[in-house]
């Protein structure tokens, strides 16, 4: 007799035995996984916040605005790091936005399906290059062969090469998020444009890009956030020294927020020094965390706008 035809009573409809156990176990297993991730994130934020608080409450504020970032000597010039991050990020975006957006436009609007089939995976391979490899490439190729050839004054370690490296690293991200944004623009809009006699360039520039603008802004913000958070490339190529003088010269060495933490926390010397050296890294870390969190939240809003529109 098929199950559906057995007599119906409360017992028959109750979830019992192994089926009930499996259901309960499943629920607890997945709950634990979710709970564990949240706890870990919470602990990270807590340790960051605690050490940051120690730093903020004990530091002599005059040391936050000095000639450079030399934490072991008690000079915590935060603007050195912020400006360093800013400069490398700007350079990175000058590289990644035109190339990434251009590649995205090509893939979404020009490429035949057969070409796209090759291009997309290729870009994804680029996304898979470990940043340490790119850092090395920036130091041993971009710096001597590109930057120093173009600008005679450039030093071996320089923020320009590092920024270009970070830019190359973020091209696939920009391309992929922008392509998604443009592909979500419905074909009916392209037809409307072509139907009016628009050429392909006009259709791309006047219809597709404006319609996808919130997604494109999101791509930019995500890429900025990625570039600010990038450590290895700048650590290797911009001057992995323990400290740095304040500088706005991209042809010379510099220190970013990320590289500052890495170069102190890693390496042979322990993070020792004047009382607050250790805590200063957490302070920078918090700053970085808040900045990227903020950028990601803003990007998320833009992405949502794209989804709602169509």
């Amino acid at each position: 007799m098929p199950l559906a035809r057995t007599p119906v009573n409360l017992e028959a409809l109750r979830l019992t035995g192994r089926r009930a156990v499996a259901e309960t176990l499943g629920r607890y297993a997945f709950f634990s996984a979710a709970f564990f991730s949240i706890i870990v994130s919470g602990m990270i934020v807590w340790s960051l916040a605690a050490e940051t608080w120690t730093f903020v409450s004990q530091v002599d504020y005059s040391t936050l605005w000095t000639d450079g970032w030399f934490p072991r000597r008690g000079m915590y010039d935060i603007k050195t790091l912020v400006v360093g991050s800013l400069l490398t990020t700007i350079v990175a975006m000058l590289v990644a936005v035109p190339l990434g957006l251009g590649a995205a436009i090509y893939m979404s609007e020009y490429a035949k399906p057969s070409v796209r089939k090759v291009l997309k995976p290729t870009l994804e391979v680029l996304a898979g290059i470990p940043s340490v490899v790119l850092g090395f490439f920036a130091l041993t190729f971009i710096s001597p062969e590109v930057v120093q050839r173009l600008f005679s004054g450039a030093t071996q370690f320089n923020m320009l090469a590092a920024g270009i490296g970070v830019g190359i690293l973020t091209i696939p991200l920009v391309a992929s998020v922008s392509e998604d944004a443009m592909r979500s623009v419905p074909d009916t809009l392209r037809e409307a444009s072509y139907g009016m006699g628009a050429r392909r360039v006009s259709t791309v520039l006047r219809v597709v890009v404006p319609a996808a603008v919130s997604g494109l802004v999101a791509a930019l913000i995500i890429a900025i956030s990625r570039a600010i958070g990038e450590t290895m490339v700048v650590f290797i190529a911009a001057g992995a020294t323990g400290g740095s003088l304040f500088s706005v010269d991209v042809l010379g060495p510099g220190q970013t927020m990320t590289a500052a933490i890495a170069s102190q926390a890693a390496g042979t010397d322990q993070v020792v020094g004047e009382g607050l050296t250790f805590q200063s890294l957490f302070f920078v870390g918090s700053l970085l965390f808040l900045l990227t969190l903020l950028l990601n939240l803003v990007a998320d809003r833009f992405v949502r706008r794209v989804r709602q529109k169509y």
Partner: protein
Amino acid sequence: MAVTTGTVSADDKAGSDPVFELSSLEVFYGEFRAVREVSMEIAEREITAFIGPSGCGKTTVLRCLNRMNDLIETARVQGSVKYHGVDLYDAAVSATEVRRRIGMVFQKPNPFPKSIYDNLAFGPRLNGVKKKSDLDDIVESSLKSAALWDEVKDRLKSSALGLSGGQQQRLCIARCVAVKPDVILMDEPCSALDPIATARIEDLMRELTSEYTIVIVTHNMQQAARVSDRTAFFTTEVNPESDRRTGVLVEYNPTSKIFSTPDDERTEQYVTGRFG
């Protein structure tokens, strides 16, 4: 059964050359022949309607008239489509130039996600109109000719997506009119609209014939009967060699004749509702 594929209109309007001459037009999607041997002439400043069951190739033929089929990778056209005597598929002819003269209104209203004003100014701007006062004039006159001016004149700067479906479709017609095309192609422009909005668009089409040649696809026979001067009835025939169905033109005649004394039995069955 008499097969009258490729009927050519008998009584041309005296004195005016046809806008389009289709001869033995065939369209393939890849290997699939979607329509075969369509021959007809489309007269100036008239409304020509394409009717027939769905899948018979009305849209396909319509999109040949302004080379919108170029956008479909697999589509291939055989035979010829002459526009004022020029072969549209000649290698020297640019599809974008064609579409500047032959505009199109689609089945689903597709305003750009821009302001009402920018939707209407889109075409003129493509054509190099830059002066604000010129654009203002074009926007106003094309909205008026689409009977939309009074409804939107106070919110030209607000998004076109905020309009109702019927208003959006009239906006699309206005956007098409704004570049002063020669011909307007409409692919089931009312299929997404309610009866009141449909009636407004039909009135609009009648008004537009004073200046424009209109070709409209509809599968609403009453609509064809109400608005068009001539009607082409398409249907599908099963290919002997494969079991795919190919669209054919069964009959092309003045609308009054199609709906009263059609030449072909299949037309009669269709218009009296005993078919498709």
